[in-house]
């Protein structure tokens, strides 16, 4: 069946400009009901129409039967953070539909399953009752398939109401079912059924309207975890030790897919080893063992796994072993909310493990940076001979983000300071694993197997001197610890640099990091447009901080530091680093509901504090 039977001319007229290409659609269903395909068809249709989008899945920590919400945001201005208000609800979950409807702002629209009888709930909404079961039956004669196909009905209804281009809907659908043409046909029929029904029943166009624009050309749509996995792939990772945990699992699962596909020799041999470990302790141990051996090794986990890796990470720090650890943060403490997002592991990770430790922590804020940090982390780990953390979160990792395509790493791999047998011969064997030859706190290492009588050294987590000999001497200990601190300080300017995302001479600044970025950008516009408050915005992308962070703060009177955690973890890291004098300019803004941070809440919070500090014009 072709789309030509659907006449664009019959589509409703465009709606008020305010919601043109600028609204959010929320689909409320039950998980395990297969609505994700429908949602992705919607998402991709908009994207193909050139409309900037983002897709966020709010799902329960459970496999099937509990409420799930998928929210697609269309934003002609290109905002891809979460929008607080839902403009268009597709209510299919009997358990939540009442709450879902009650939560809407006045004027919103609701497609709902007719038997749910929602229209009596409020009079300030636009309702589109749809008899899903009735519509799906003729389209899908096989009763047991109906549950899946049923969800496509709402695609058709929404397509009509919001004026999607049906050829793009079909393209998006067929892309989704690339390998299953039969399923594609069936689903397409369901979409059309919904479309036809809507066209007949709801001739009036909805105020949420879509129109082709040129906002997505050349862009891709990807999850942060897939991006991170690609980063590892192109970083040349060879050993992966992992243990499943939401929201981190998909990073390693994507990575395994990519490795299987792109990293076999012509003879079919694997140039990688992936091990599903027995737990996170073992996963981390495998990474350290491999890193010690000279391989590029990675693991990915989330909060509970980070806690379990504590001891090993301390070993990695003290014995100076390269390792890359992704932490796709979820809401803690403890098991917490495994399917909600947060930035709650930051300060724990920064100094993970007992004793004095300081790690390198990268803070990607976009999917592109998930890729870039993925690549960079391995270079840094080998250069600084230490565990490097990449702190992503559920929002960044598991949601769908629009992004420019990633750029191929131009720099050759930096394998760090490694002495070969030849080097040792040149040095006449005179070297010491932990000697600070270059004054940067970084020693030279040899790799097991190096064919020189002086190559071998003994690696240990207990006290050692510059020549890697066991030592309990205070002086050796102090020298070693001071060198480690020096090494860490020296990393400041080698990590992803802070980005001055927006400059302003207002004297008011904000510092944000990670996935907060997307809400922040929009919040800045809101503040500027609505209240003339023009904040400078520095996005921090790593710890320890580059010196430019202090420079930024020095140029401001007040700097709002935004954290997605209860205790203002970034605020405290900054205060500790800047010291009390500059630190006195910092103000903490915290959001920790488990939902991706939205612009409105941010701008409200900053404005409230700013109003207390000085009256706004």
């Amino acid at each position, binding site marked *: 069946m072709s789309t030509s039977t659907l006449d664009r001319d019959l589509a409703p007229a465009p709606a008020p400009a305010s919601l043109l290409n600028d609204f959010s659609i929320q689909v409320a269903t039950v998980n395990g009901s297969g609505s994700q395909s429908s949602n992705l068809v919607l998402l991709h249709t908009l994207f193909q129409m050139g409309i900037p989008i983002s897709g966020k899945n709010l799902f329960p920590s459970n496999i099937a039967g509990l409420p799930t919400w998928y929210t697609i945001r269309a934003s002609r201005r290109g905002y891809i953070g979460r929008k607080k208000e839902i403009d268009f609800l597709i209510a299919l979950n009997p358990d939540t539909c009442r709450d879902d409807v009650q939560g809407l702002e006045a004027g919103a629209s609701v497609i709902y399953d007719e038997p749910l009888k929602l229209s009596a709930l409020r009079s300030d909404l636009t309702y589109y009752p749809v008899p899903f079961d009735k519509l799906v039956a003729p389209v899908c004669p096989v009763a047991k398939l109906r549950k899946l196909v049923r969800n496509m009905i709402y695609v058709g209804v929404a397509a009509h109401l919001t004026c999607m281009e049906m050829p793009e809907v079909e393209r998006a659908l067929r892309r989704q079912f690339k390998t299953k043409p039969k399923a594609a046909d069936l689903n397409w029929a369901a979409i059309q059924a919904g479309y036809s029904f809507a066209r007949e029943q709801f001739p009036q166009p909805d105020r949420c309207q879509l129109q082709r624009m040129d906002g997505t050309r050349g862009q891709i749509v990807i999850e942060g975890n897939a991006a991170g996995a690609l980063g590892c792939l192109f970083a040349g990772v060879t*050993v992966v030790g992992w243990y499943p945990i939401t929201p981190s699992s998909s990073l390693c699962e994507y990575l395994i897919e990519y490795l299987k596909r*792109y990293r076999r*020799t012509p003879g079919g*041999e*694997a140039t990688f080893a992936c091990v599903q470990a027995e737990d996170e302790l073992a*996963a981390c141990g*495998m990474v350290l063992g491999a890193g010690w051996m000279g391989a590029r090794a990675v693991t990915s986990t989330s909060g509970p796994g980070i806690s379990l890796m504590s001891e090993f990470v301390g070993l990695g720090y003290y014995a100076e072993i390269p390792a890359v650890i992704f932490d796709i943060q979820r809401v803690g403490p403890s098991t917490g909310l495994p399917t909600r997002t947060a930035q709650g592991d930051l300060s724990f990770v920064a100094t993970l493990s007992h004793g004095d430790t300081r790690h390198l922590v990268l803070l990607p804020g976009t999917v592109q940076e998930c890729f870039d940090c993925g690549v960079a982390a391995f270079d840094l780990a080998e250069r600084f001979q230490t565990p490097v953390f990449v702190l992503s979160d559920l929002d960044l990792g598991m949601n769908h983000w629009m992004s420019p395509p*990633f750029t191929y790493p131009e720099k050759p791999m930096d394998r760090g300071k490694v002495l070969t047998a030849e080097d040792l011969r040149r040095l006449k064997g005179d070297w010491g694993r932990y000697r600070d030859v270059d004054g940067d706190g970084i020693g030279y290492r040899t790799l097991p*197997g190096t064919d020189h*009588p002086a190559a071998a050294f003994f690696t240990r987590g207990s006290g050692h001197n510059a020549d890697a000999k066991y030592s309990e001497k205070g002086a050796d200990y102090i020298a070693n610890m001071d060198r480690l601190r020096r090494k860490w300080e020296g990393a400041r300017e080698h990590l992803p640099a802070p980005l001055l995302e927006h400059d302003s001479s207002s004297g008011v600044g904000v510092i944000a990091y990670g996935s907060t970025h997307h809400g922040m950008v929009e919040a800045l516009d809101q503040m500027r447009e609505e209240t003339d408050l023009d904040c400078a915005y520095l996005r921090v992308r790593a710890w320890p901080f580059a010196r430019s962070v202090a420079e930024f703060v020095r140029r401001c009177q007040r700097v709002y530091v935004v954290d997605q955690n209860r205790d203002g973890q970034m605020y405290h890291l900054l205060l500790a680093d800047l010291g009390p004098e500059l630190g006195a300019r910092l103000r903490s803004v915290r959001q920790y509901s488990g939902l991706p941070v939205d612009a409105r809440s941010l701008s409200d919070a900053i404005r409230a504090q700013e109003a207390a500090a000085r009256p706004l014009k």
Partner: protein
Amino acid sequence: MPTTTSTPASTPSPKVNRIGLPATDYRGAKTTLCAGCGHNAISERIIDACFEMGIDPHRFVKLSGIGCSSKAPTYFLGRSFGFNSVHGRMPSIATGAVLANRTLQALGVSGDGDTASIGLGQFIHLMRRNLPLIYIIEDNGVYGLTKGQFSATADLGAKQKSGVINELPALDTCALAVLSGATFVARSFSGDKKQLTAILKAALAHRGTVMIDVISPCVTFNDHEGSTKSYKYVLEHEEALQEVSFVPAFDDIAVDYDPGTTLDVTMHDGSHLRLRKLAQDFDPSNGQQALDVLTAAHQSGEVLTGVFYLDTTKPDFVQQLGLVGEPLAHLPEAVVRPPRAVLDEVMASLL
């Protein structure tokens, strides 16, 4: 029945071995363990075996956990890389290391506390993967380094120096290893020079996980009356399942043996492990039977030594994963970083 062994007992060691190294090249730092500690004797046997097998020290790596036993790798093969990691977690470190460079010979040294208490999960999972590695437990039934607490291999009824009696059953690491998937499982005694050396040499010839539980008395905390891991107790209760000898592939000697009483196992590298039956008819390729003799020995209070299980056919973890021959750690950028076209392809699929 003539059997031959290449332990120094039968043939005096030459000045240099087959790769031209003197025995001193296999020694390590001076031990800091107690004089008389069983662990020191095991180090000696490792030195002997590696020297006699002509192991190239720079192609050998030593890994351990934490404990007196785990310190031992410092005291042998000083020219080999070593990694003294954290308590109970050597198996995962070893797994990463071996996968990163499959071409090196890896030896893991652990204690009974390190393995059977804190490290039990990792131990079993390593066995299950049949990681190519020799795993030695220097088993003294106590935590030596923390001053003599019982470990999980302490026998039921064993007495601590302070008089406290152990009320929990011992975990039999050999039985666990057999049950979990190790392909070479043996028990020996630090004081049994001949047997231990022969087993170690065979271990060096095996491809897959070798688990050797070596009873290794702790002279300071567990060598008293009432201990079941004292020199005295083991000497009185050791029961060898077989007489073990080893004929390396490079020792091109054809030696007669009676197949009725001696089992000859050809190892991966062409060498031969010869097991001369003693008391019972025993087939080391039968895991079932291994569990049987171990359970029986347990009940009788015997310290049964010998090779309990041997499977030379099962693929090891490296083979299972289908790894390239070169060490993953050393693959060049051109091999591990896919070309630009691959990124383009992936990006195109996401448009």
